[in-house]
């Protein structure tokens, strides 16, 4: 069906002007502001023309969820409520998105894992829900501290998965994320991840777009599937042949359906490149040693690279911004001169190093680590030490600090 008449230039009930998103994000005057990551989430959602936000408390996203409750009280969000659990929240998000709403939610760690069944369902149903994931530990014994292991599970769901380094990334990518995920050829949910506490609970200078500008509302008539059609998949799930029948056609249809979801992830590539100015950022990629990182590990790597430069050791940097779509071609190009590729991560599994290894030729160049997890910080010194080790330079151990 044809889209609705453009609302650009009209005002919403709060007096904000629906603005061309490209102009709003790239040309409008910005105001430097000193905010925590959680406050930045609130300020982005204030400008996102969200219809529905559904919340459930779990550290470290609880503050952001509560702040968005304030936005609802102020009249910036159509509806807001607390679900019974993370599983309920994600199911309720699906219901709202099926009904044609722009939906936002936040979760973290065990909450992400508890709700996991919903994420491939969102992707399969082509629901462009945005979910902030403020990553934290997921395993027993309980930890509320930063750890990015949950991202490795999200990467196989069919969702778009982006990994923000800073509060500024967070602010911009929340708004740009809706523009990418709501494209009719994409129309997939977005998991916008950050490292909990490091981004959510620290204050940083963030350049905000004008508060009297907001994104145009979601247009459900551009959806690639019928909106809330109770007779057809994806809304009608049970009693249908994909689930209940055993024959070649059912299997082939379901297989094609899955392929279409991943095709949509691929299609998001060109939109993400446009909005994020590339899927990766690079610095000095003609050096022998490169650090490839995402999230907070990028910030720590910058510090390590500056320390090494003081010692006359040149190291390049690749910041991976999107994990789905995976920037394989970009990483192959950026790493083609590197003899050693260091991949520091805030998780025990080393999922980013695995992805990089699966992407590039001569992958013995990849050094998976250093790894920290369970809430440990990653001192730049241990990244610098890893670089020195691969270069055959003796590096002091940090293990005895404080002894």
């Amino acid at each position, binding site marked *: 069906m044809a889209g609705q008449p453009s609302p650009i230039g009209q005002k919403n009930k709060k007096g904000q002007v629906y603005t061309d998103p490209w102009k709003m994000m790239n040309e409008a005057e910005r105001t430097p502001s000193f905010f925590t990551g959680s406050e930045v989430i609130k300020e982005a959602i204030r400008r996102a023309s969200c219809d529905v936000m559904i919340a459930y408390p779990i550290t470290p996203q609880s503050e952001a969820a509560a702040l968005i409750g304030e936005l609802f009280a102020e009249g910036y969000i159509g509806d807001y409520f607390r679900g019974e659990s993370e599983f309920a929240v994600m199911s309720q998000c699906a219901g709202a998105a099926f009904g044609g709403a722009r939906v936002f939610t936040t979760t973290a760690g065990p909450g992400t894992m508890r709700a996991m069944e919903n994420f491939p369902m969102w992707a399969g149903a082509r629901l462009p829900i945005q979910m902030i994931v403020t990553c934290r530990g997921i395993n027993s014994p309980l930890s509320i501290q930063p750890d990015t292991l949950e991202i490795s599970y999200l990467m196989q769901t069919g969702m778009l998965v982006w990994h923000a380094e800073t509060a500024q990334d967070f602010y911009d990518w929340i708004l740009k994320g809706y523009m990418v995920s709501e494209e009719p*050829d994409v129309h997939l949910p977005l998991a916008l991840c950050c490292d909990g506490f490091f981004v959510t609970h620290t204050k940083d200078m963030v350049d905000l777009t004008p508060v009297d500008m907001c994104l145009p509302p979601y247009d459900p008539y551009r959806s690639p599937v019928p909106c809330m059609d109770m007779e057809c998949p994806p809304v009608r799930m049970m009693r249908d042949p994909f689930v209940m029948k055993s024959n070649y056609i059912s299997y082939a249809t379901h297989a094609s359906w899955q392929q279409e979801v991943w095709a949509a992830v691929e299609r998001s590539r060109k939109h993400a490149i446009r909005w994020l100015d590339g899927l990766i950022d690079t610095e000095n990629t003609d050096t022998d040693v490169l650090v490839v990182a995402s999230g907070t590990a990028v910030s720590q790597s910058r510090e390590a690279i500056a320390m090494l430069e003081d010692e006359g050791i040149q190291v390049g940097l690749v910041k991976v911004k999107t994990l789905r779509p995976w920037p394989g071609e970009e990483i192959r190009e950026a790493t083609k001169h590197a003899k050693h590729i260091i991949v520091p991560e805030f998780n025990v599994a080393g999922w980013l190093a695995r992805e990089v290894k699966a992407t590039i030729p001569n992958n013995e160049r990849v050094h998976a680590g250093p790894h920290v997890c369970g809430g440990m910080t990653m001192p730049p010194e241990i990244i610098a030490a890893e670089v020195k080790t691969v270069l055959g330079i003796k590096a002091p151990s940090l293990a005895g600090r404080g002894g």
Partner: protein
Amino acid sequence: MPTSYKVLPGPEHFLPPSAASMGIRLPDPGQAHIHGTIVTEEEAMEQAARQFLSAKVPTIFPGPLVLWAWNEKAAHKAKAVRHLYETIKESVTPSQQAMLIPMPDYRPKYPKINPEIEINPNHPNLTIWHNKIDACMFVGVHCHQANLSLKIIRGGTNCYTIAMCAQAGHEDAMLSIRDATADKILRLADWVKKLKGSVPPPA
């Protein structure tokens, strides 16, 4: 990413890959694609007209977005589709059989649909096989369902697929035009009329 993959008539594979996963990218506004290569919209219009005129059973599959009068635009588009069908019918030889078979909805229907009267996105190959359709055009079908159909058709049939898409186009079709309007559908009909008699009919 450069790719050597071409989106061509099948049967391609037991489970063919999506064209997007093989590196085929959708055209930007004002462009179209033929076999995954970006071309001008006019080139695609001409090629689509040639496919209709050289097929034994050129067929249009209109979907719910043009079959139902949701709004004025949908009604105009439906009239344009009907005009295109009539134009093809008038332009082909008596040995060719133009068809207009609707995809009225996406409900899975079992044990199976009646391929004489409809096509379904979950098993479009049944309609293609039954009617021996060798060139078809999707119009007014939601993008997700169109992509399902186009890939299944490429996987299991030798039918040439054309997608007249109101949004960003379809890389799983052999030829796709994007941002479809009633005017664009009428322009395609003009191309069919213009090429009438100049394209050899099927042997």
